[in-house]
């Protein structure tokens, strides 16, 4: 797996590059938009992390040109301050996800993994599973070790999201975005509440749905 990092701030760049290398990725780094664009056009990357504020060519324009050149590489934008405007513009110009500084590296990693997974996987199966837990998206049937389990709609959506990213951590912000459709953090404990309800139903032994402190949750790490 090869990831491109386009970031001009040397501190953030080295922090991201080092972290991604530790996580087992091959990483290329560019510190301005033009170099980043040239690299992305000549090499096939599995994902790109692009800062919006860049010298020479800003991140938004860079990705817009990349898309015009029909390069489908998944892009995660980085930006300084959480503003809805930036987010919308980022996604409009061809980005796939968006993260605001300051961010936790684990959040960045979780989002990149989700992006790569989404890009490389074939059209989604109607059945998701991890370990002894299965979920049918069509019949909305959930089983654990063959026993049927009744879930509330939100618990169902949460489990489906966790199963799609089985074995990889997802952050609370990612869950809020995909399960609640909230693109900003309402700063509440609603995620924890639904997670603990789901856990009570699906994982009374606390083996499957783990809390990763400082990151979020992971489902089926040991499956």
């Amino acid at each position, binding site marked *: 797996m090869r990831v491109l990092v386009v970031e001009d701030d040397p501190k953030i760049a080295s922090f991201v590059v080092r972290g991604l290398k530790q996580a087992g990725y091959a990483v290329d780094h560019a510190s301005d938009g033009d170099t980043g664009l040239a690299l992305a056009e000549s090499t096939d990357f599995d994902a790109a992390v692009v800062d919006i504020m860049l010298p020479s060519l800003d991140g938004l324009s860079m990705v817009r040109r990349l898309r015009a050149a029909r390069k489908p590489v998944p892009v995660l934008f980085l930006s300084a301050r959480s503003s809805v405007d930036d987010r919308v513009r980022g996604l409009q110009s061809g980005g796939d996800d968006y993260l605001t500084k300051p961010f936790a590296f684990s959040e960045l990693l979780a989002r990149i993994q989700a992006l790569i997974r989404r890009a490389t996987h074939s059209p989604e199966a109607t059945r998701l599973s991890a370990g002894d837990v299965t979920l049918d998206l069509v019949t909305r049937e959930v089983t654990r070790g063959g026993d049927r389990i009744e879930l509330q709609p939100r618990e169902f959506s949460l489990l489906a999201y966790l199963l799609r990213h089985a074995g990889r951590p997802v952050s609370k912000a990612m869950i809020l975005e995909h399960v609640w459709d909230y693109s900003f953090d309402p700063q509440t404990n609603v995620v924890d509440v639904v997670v603990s309800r789901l856990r009570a139903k699906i994982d009374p032994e606390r083996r499957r749905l783990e809390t990763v402190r*400082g990151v979020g949750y992971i489902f089926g790490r040991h499956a």
Partner: protein
Amino acid sequence: MLERLRQSLALRLAWQYAVVFALALAVTFSALYWLLAGAFDARERAALEHSVADLAGAYARGGLAGVNSRITSDSSPEMRSLFVRLGRPDGTIAYNKWPEDWLETRVQQLIPGVSIEHEILRIPQSAARDYTIASSQLPDGWVLHVGRLMDSKAVFLAPLRRSFAGVGAAALLLSLAVGTLLAWRATRPLRIVSATTRRILETGDLDARVPAPRGSGELTLLVHQLNRLLDKDATHVRVLRETLDNLAHDLRTPLTRLRASAELALREGGDPAEARTALADCVDESDRLLHLLEALLDISAAEASALKLHRGRLDLSPLLVRAADLYREVAEDKGIAVLVDAPSPVEADVDAIRLGQAVNNLLDNALKYSPAGARVTLAARAEAGAAVIIVSDTGPGVPEAEREAVFRRLYRGEACRSERGLGLGLSLVKAVVEAHGGGISVDEAPGGGARFTVRLPCQIQTWEIPVS
């Protein structure tokens, strides 16, 4: 000092006033002088013409003898002082009467028998007197000259000119003095404003205000506006100072905990699992700090009117439904029923995300402080000129003494110290609502419990379209 005096607005105004006054005075006096001179002239002309007509009449009745007898029979000083001559243009003189004191050659050179028409000829005799001569054409070719020695106009009007000059000078001086006084008084508020601002600049005394003058003129308005500006400034500075104090206070505790956790993780020879937990605590604590900072920045931006609002006209009820949906599981877990009461659309110009955040915070707050079995109601109403959101609960309510304070940042009520939270939720709500030009208040709901009322002004413009 002299330069300052020269530059003084009051003195400049007074001088300008005096100059205008002097011009007006000069114009008035000139007009008056001209009118008086004209009237004096007309009177003399009338008297002389009367004499001419009298003698011409005598000639018509009795010829030369008639004129002679008219003159000799009248011994009045007026008649004696008259110059009378009957002559023809060829120099023939039929009658000539010189008063004793007429020795002026220029009058003698006056060609007899030439009509001066309707003009009156004035020949100066001395600085003070003029020979004044009128004429009349008689029917048989003779021309009658009648003259008289009169005071010259200049002399006659001299006292008038003198008194004009005197009165004018006095009036000018008076106007200068009065003008200076008036201008000085009128610009007094300016000097006070200037003194106050200088004091603020020099001493940094933010509580200094300009004493408000009476009345409602422009300067009074200026003073009021300046005072309001100073008030606002002082408030901003105070809020900033308080924010910094609160921030320092509120950051100190989590930072201390952060440091303690990091120290624990660094301890040599410790249990690696324990170290990992300590590091995870560090991460949690940093997240809390980041959230706190973000919320404080939002509040500050909203309070300084720097919060960018993306306003659009929308129905408020979906916001309430969405908030209720977000907290559904939280409410269920606590055994609290959440009701949305918005029977008809309530429209307002709002930033959907910011106002949604405010509604979330109000609901979060209500859920946090209500016991199991309580009920929370989110209601929206359209009132005259306002859209109203009411979040009420059947919980313990807010004690009257705390109702103002709950909106202060970082304020935690006596009863809720144990609850998790930043103490910023309600101040963020207040800041967002006020950034929308609205207001928020809390009172007791019917049957107890807290009731938060958000009032947003509607700038609904209705156009009456006539139906034809």
